């Protein structure tokens, strides 16, 4: 049996107080799958990311990355993990290459090997000509692409992206979505792409995990989820699953 690239099990988190940010969240992302973590603002997506990257420790439950528990073997888990956070995390005053070399060093990749991989990733994302520019000089779409190139330098098998298209215009969004789908198809990388924008989902190939108020409301290939909700499109399914109405059945199931 294939080991899931990401396995989340019984995850619960609270920031103190009574309100739970996440409650009994569980799902899997298999190698090569593009999975959209779909949820309205405040659904718990960023909390889930902080837990999956070991920046926070959950109140209960576990996160495994290629079978490595992030709490028990953070080194092995993080070595398989590439992350693009919602907030930009590049040093604006450093050049593209300096930023990437810094990251490569954090993963113990030597200078020569790092430069080779940097060239390959930047070329793939059509950014190689701009390598010597300071990040400050790049536009938002290009900065995002640098962050994706960076997240791939240590050859992760799982890539997490937290609302990576925030602040991008439509062409830049499209390019980005195409790039990341290509990574799944060509390199077999598993992707978890958090978003609240329905149109970023490709209904033919993608999986979805719908998160609402800290709980998983649906989980599976788009077609299966639509069948479950009895809706024709993922947008309708999403509306139904995340409707604010206090339906007894949803709350009871929850």
């Amino acid at each position: 049996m294939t080991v899931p690239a990401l396995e989340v099990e019984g995850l619960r988190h609270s920031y103190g107080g009574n309100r739970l940010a996440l409650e009994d969240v569980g799902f899997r992302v298999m190698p090569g799958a593009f999975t959209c973590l779909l949820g309205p603002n405040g659904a718990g997506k960023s909390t889930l990311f902080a837990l999956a990257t070991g920046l926070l420790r959950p109140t209960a439950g576990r996160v495994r990355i290629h079978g490595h528990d992030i709490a028990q073997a953070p080194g092995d888990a993080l070595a398989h993990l590439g992350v693009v956070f919602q907030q930009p995390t590049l040093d604006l005053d450093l050049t593209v290459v300096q930023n990437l070399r810094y990251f490569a060093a954090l993963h113990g990749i030597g200078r020569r090997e790092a430069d080779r991989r940097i060239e390959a990733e930047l070329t793939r994302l059509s950014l190689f000509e701009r390598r010597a520019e300071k990040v400050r000089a790049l536009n938002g779409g290009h900065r995002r692409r640098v962050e994706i190139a960076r997240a791939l330098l240590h050859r992760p098998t799982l890539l997490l992206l937290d609302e990576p298209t925030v602040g991008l215009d439509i062409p830049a969004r499209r390019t980005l979505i195409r790039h990341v789908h290509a990574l799944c198809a060509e390199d077999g990388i598993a992707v978890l792409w958090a978003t609240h924008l329905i149109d970023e989902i490709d209904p033919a190939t993608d999986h979805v995990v719908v998160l609402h108020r800290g709980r998983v409301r649906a989980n599976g290939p788009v077609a299966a989820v639509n069948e479950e909700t009895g809706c024709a499109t993922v947008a309708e399914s999403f509306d139904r699953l995340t409707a604010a109405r206090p339906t007894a059945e949803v709350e009871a199931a929850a």
Partner: protein
Amino acid sequence: MTGRQFGGWWIAFQGIVAREVLRFVHQRERFLGALVRPLVWLFVFAAGFRAALGIAIIPPYETYIPYEVYIVPGLIGMIQLFNGMQGSLSMVYDREMGSMRILLTSPLPRAFLLLARLLGGVVVSVLQVAAFLLIVRLYGIDLPIWAPLTVLPALLLNGLMLGALGMVLASTIRQLENFAGVMNFVVFPLFFLSSALYPLYRMEEAGPLLWWLCSLNPFTHGVELIRFALYGRIDWLALAVVTGATLLFAALAVRGYSPARGMGSRAPSAAG
């Protein structure tokens, strides 16, 4: 995956230090500010005080010294103090800006990453001190010829202590805006209640309470460590206090960044 043998640690260490140095070099204002501050004290304050303040012969000095000579170690300490606080400011900034997360998602142990980050800051402070000592020498202040070398271990230790203190502050300060308070409640008391500007026996003449505060201040011992090291000597009490304080602050800093407490135990901002 490649990164977790010993070679990987060394590569990561170099990368982290290199980033700190690059960032410092790119911020020209910061470099000038770091240099101008102690020079103003040296050229203006010390010149004015020279007449008012006579200094008896106290170790490590073997003769009467002008006030400018006395104040040099204190100003070196000041450079490192400000650098340590600057380091903590940039850590708060990194946390707000998210680049701290990139550091902490490296597969290497968190304590090692934070220590490397700390040493990166110390290297920057040593560069600042080197520039300062060069100007001091050109100005004609008499220091032993080997002073820049003998002072180096003291600079590393004192820099580590102040950098670790800065990290502790960074892990407790929630927002960038609160940072001005640090200046008032940390930097000024540390600096003025120390032996940086006036010898401790002068403080004793002023009152026992002040003397006690100055003697308990770890920054006093950092300055004395530097003062003795400039003359190729070791102040053992200072060495013990600075080492102890460094270990204490470093332990608190690592604790402040443990995953159980989260990134300063805040909920992620904006869309959750």
